[in-house]
């Protein structure tokens, strides 16, 4: 009985291969986009875990300075003498040619076994490691990037995170220009009893417990949450196709259900058979979807990796590994998604009288009831969104707001369209126009899910492109303010830096130091910069809020400027006091925009910086000169000091580079947007193709009454275009609301900066054209088939045997 029933049910799909293909394609694409995001996130997280686990940080406690500043090497000596089993580590960023890397210096003789990343003691490797010029150990992909650069000898070591080189602490101190300095001390797990207390020997140090999550994982959380949200949006759009295809298939098969029930198949068995059928499809499409997801992820990962490197300094390999968890999650989401998409149809099948005939108006009227319920749900969701906007806080609340807003808008769409179509019908003159509007309204239940998918995709497109374009506009303006100096030079040694400074003093309008130290401010990693008292800053710096005479107060060392993200994250404002590395305090006299920087930043006067941090690295300078003379000066600088090209960069070069990083940051978002729009276009196509088969009984009488097939086909095409155009119109306000939430809530929570919103109607017009093109293409195939339909096929509608 079960097999016979299943055969009868499956035979439906044999008769409708296109509908089956659309169902499977919708589910595959939905799973693919979701899996792609999961694969990317999985790869990145695995990389962060490797970084977090380096030198046993996830298992060993460490001693660090509370303010994050470097520790004198003497402290290490004192601790060892007092019986503490500790091992020094220094780390920092440095540039080898055009490759920027994290340098990790260790002492192989005192390193705890748990922190052994590379077997340096094996064979004759120890001596070259600890003696000049030293050895750099690096992961294969990092080693490959270093082949063209002038570095100490490089050896490949598996297991090191990408973008990191491991070397002896002495070599690292030289490379990083931090003589006799260390960053932290690793504690052996077993310490001698009775050793002198830490407070006594090293009062500035504090114990940091082992942590499984590194700073990178925390910093990049918001980025991955953004990706996940987009993956979920794409998945939801795909599910609309699945829901639509399943709903139509259930409606088409109602006579079969009736017959099967009449022949003695219990309702429960029928529902179970349908679930079995859906599970077969879900697993099949899930497998294809995850495989497709890997292809999409492979294509997107290089850009994601570049973004993470540019934005967070996080190195993620550009290649994917196959993770069983991603396959399992992909199949699970496909199955869950299918069952969610089919739930309504299964519920209706369970409850609706099976003897009810499959009539379009009956279906439409049943949908009218559903429409009312949908309207209530939409209202509740939109009110929830308003409530979260008013009272919610945090990134999760931001995404909950987005979800409620988008879902509420999508659910409200059929209601809005019904209203517009009613109005259109009232205003229509002539029988054809009246029929067109009424018939379009009747088609709405069959198309509503595809249109909701289209609305989501279009709104996401409008919202995200508004956000990105607003960001770009603000970012470009900000770059112009921030990069006001004509040239930027980086010396290789402090002696060279002094010589360069003296040389430039005669040949430029101003030489402005760009000196900074790293540390912790208000518990967050931060950089502290010193600035000269110069008009460059007074005239250009992108200040958001400040006390009067702010630059005078900076110059006299009375206060500090902080970046917007530090202010927002820590709730700091003008007049508040902050404790800076070294324990001294400064009053906040201004807050400035600092887009694209994940960490906090503090600006103080250059004299104050040197006074508090005499060991600050003094290698970089900004040069002011008439723009026309900049190129000649750069050439002269390179020639005079033999500086590599990348050590003297002009303003335009930095801007180009910054904009490139910016564009790459949003490449992934743009790609997901386009893919989501593609999925929505497919949803339209799938629905229109499926509906076209069901439309003949409604179209044939109109044809018989004197309309040509071509005329009908044009009307069908116009119907698709009209619905797409109306959906686009509805998508614009939803997209603007989405952009507002992204700019005013999500960005602030995720990155710590708030951007002004700019509107770009030209972009909307382009998107509308694209949507109409997609809808036109989706409607063209069924319309073309109608135009080419032979009269005998139309006549079958009138045949008695039907």
């Amino acid at each position, binding site marked *: 009985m079960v097999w016979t029933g299943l055969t009868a049910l499956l035979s439906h799909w044999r008769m409708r291969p296109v509908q089956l293909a659309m169902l499977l394609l919708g589910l595959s694409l939905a799973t693919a986009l979701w899996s792609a995001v999961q694969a990317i996130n999985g790869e990145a997280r695995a990389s962060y875990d490797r970084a977090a686990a380096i030198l046993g940080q996830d298992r060993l406690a460490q001693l660090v300075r509370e303010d994050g500043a470097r520790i004198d090497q003497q402290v290490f000596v004192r601790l060892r003498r007092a019986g503490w089993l500790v091992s020094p580590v220094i780390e920092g960023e440095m540039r080898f040619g055009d490759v920027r890397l994290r340098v990790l210096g260790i002492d192989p003789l005192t390193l705890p076994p748990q922190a052994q990343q590379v077997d340096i003691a094996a064979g004759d490797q120890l001596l070259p490691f600890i003696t000049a010029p030293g050895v750099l150990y690096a992961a294969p992909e990092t080693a490959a990037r270093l082949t063209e650069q002038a570095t100490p000898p490089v050896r490949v070591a598996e297991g090191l995170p990408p973008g990191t080189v491991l070397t002896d602490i002495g070599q690292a101190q030289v490379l990083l220009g931090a003589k006799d300095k260390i960053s932290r001390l690793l504690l052996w797990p077993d310490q001698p009893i009775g050793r002198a207390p830490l407070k006594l020997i090293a009062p500035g140090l504090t114990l940091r417990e082992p942590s499984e999550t590194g700073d990178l994982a925390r910093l990049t959380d918001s980025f991955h949450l953004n990706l996940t949200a987009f993956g979920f949006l794409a998945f939801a759009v795909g599910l609309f196709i699945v829901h639509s295809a399943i709903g139509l298939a259930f409606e088409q098969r109602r006579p079969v259900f009736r017959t099967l029930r009449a022949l003695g198949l219990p309702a429960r068995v029928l529902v179970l058979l349908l679930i079995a059928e859906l599970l077969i499809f879900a697993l099949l499409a899930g497998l294809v979807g995850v495989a497709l997801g890997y292809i999409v992820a492979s294509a997107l990962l290089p850009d994601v990796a570049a973004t993470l490197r540019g934005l967070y300094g996080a190195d993620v390999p550009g290649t994917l590994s196959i993770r069983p968890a991603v396959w399992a999650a992909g199949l699970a989401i496909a199955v869950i998604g299918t069952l969610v998409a089919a739930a309504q149809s299964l519920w209706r099948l369970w409850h609706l009288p099976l003897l009810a005939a499959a009539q379009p108006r009956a279906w439409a009227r049943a949908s009218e009831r559903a429409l009312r319920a949908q309207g209530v749900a939409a209202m509740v969701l939109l009110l929830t969104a308003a409530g979260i906007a008013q009272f919610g806080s945090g990134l999760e609340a931001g995404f909950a707001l987005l979800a409620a807003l988008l879902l509420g808008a999508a659910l409200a769409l059929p209601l809005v369209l019904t209203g517009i179509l009613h109005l259109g019908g009232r205003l229509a003159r002539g029988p054809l126009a*009246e029929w067109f509007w009424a*018939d379009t309204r009747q088609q709405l239940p069959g198309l509503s899910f595809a249109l909701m998918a289209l609305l989501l995709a279009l709104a996401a497109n409008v919202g995200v492109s508004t956000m990105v374009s607003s960001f770009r506009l603000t970012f470009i303006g900000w770059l112009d303010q921030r990069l006001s100096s004509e040239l930027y030079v980086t010396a290789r040694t402090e002696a060279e830096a002094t010589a360069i400074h003296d040389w430039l003093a005669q040949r430029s309008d101003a030489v402005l130091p760009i000196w900074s130290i790293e540390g912790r401010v208000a518990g967050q990693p931060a950089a502290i910069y010193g600035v000269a008292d110069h008009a460059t800053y007074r005239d250009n710096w992108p200040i958001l809020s400040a006390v009067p005479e702010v630059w005078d107060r900076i110059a006299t060392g009375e206060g500090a400027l902080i970046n917007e993200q530090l202010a927002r994250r820590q709730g700091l404002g003008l007049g508040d006091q902050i404790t800076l590395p070294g324990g001294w305090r400064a009053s906040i006299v201004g807050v400035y925009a600092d887009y694209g920087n994940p960490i906090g930043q503090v600006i103080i006067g250059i004299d104050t910086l040197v006074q508090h941090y005499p060991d600050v690295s003094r290698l970089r300078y900004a040069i002011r000169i008439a723009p026309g003379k900049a190129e000649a000066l750069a050439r002269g600088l390179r020639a005079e000091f033999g500086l590599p090209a990348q050590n003297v960069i002009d303003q335009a070069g930095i801007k180009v580079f910054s904009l490139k990083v910016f564009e790459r940051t949003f490449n992934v978002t743009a790609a997901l947007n386009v893919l989501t729009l593609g999925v929505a276009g497919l949803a339209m196509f799938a629905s229109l193709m499926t509906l076209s088969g069901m439309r003949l009984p409604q179209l044939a*009488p109109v044809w018989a009454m004197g*309309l040509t097939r071509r005329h009908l086909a044009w009307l069908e095409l116009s119907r698709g275009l009209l619905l797409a155009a109306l959906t686009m119109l509805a998508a614009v306000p939803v997209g603007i609301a989405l952009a507002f939430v992204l700019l005013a809530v999500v960005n602030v929570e995720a990155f710590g900066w708030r951007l002004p919103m700019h509107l770009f109607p030209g972009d909307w017009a382009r998107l509308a054209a694209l949507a109409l093109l997609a809808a036109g293409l989706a409607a063209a195939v069924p319309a073309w088939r109608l135009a080419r339909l032979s009269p005998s096929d139309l*006549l079958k509608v009138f045949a008695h045997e039907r």
Partner: protein
Amino acid sequence: MLLRLHQIDKFYSTGEGPLHVLHGIDLSLEAGKSLALTGESGSGKSTLLHLVAGLDSPDAGEIHLGGTNIVGLNDTALAALRRGTVGLVFQQFNLIPSLDVAANLAFQARLAGRPDPAWLKVLAERLGLAKVLTRYPEQLSSGQQQRVAIGRTLAARPRLVLADEPTGNLDEATGDAVLDLILSLVTETGAALLMVTHSNRLANRLNAHVHLQAGRLV
């Protein structure tokens, strides 16, 4: 002569080769007259009706309607013919589900550019539809739906009414009543009626009666 068919042949292609559905049919019908076309299932009755309506074209022969040979007319001309000259009543009613009864009734007349509210009112009264004008087709009984279909056809005042088993889906009493209405309204409008039916009883109520057997008039 309003309608004249001359040596009409029609083939359908099937998996087993071409099927000869109509063999050299000759037929004529004057304005104001009614003609019943009977025959077994598959004898070609509906095919013949569809050819006359310009819904399909014959493989040989001529169909003269109001003096014009409609065979070979293009799609647009055939569509114009269906709008303005002929009116079709189907067994399945084939109303437009998205329009209410009033809009369905007026649809073809408006499509033909001959809207006549006074005549529509008369038709609605005569057909007993005056109280259901705002309902949708699915909310009507079969008899009511068929009366709407008849009203829709006659509202346009076609010169030739083609009815394909118009009472086939109705019980005998309703069917008789519907046929009475068709005949009286056709007479009043001066149109000709060509009706396909299985029933000899109903066929005998028309002015003339021809029988099709295996695609030939007998």
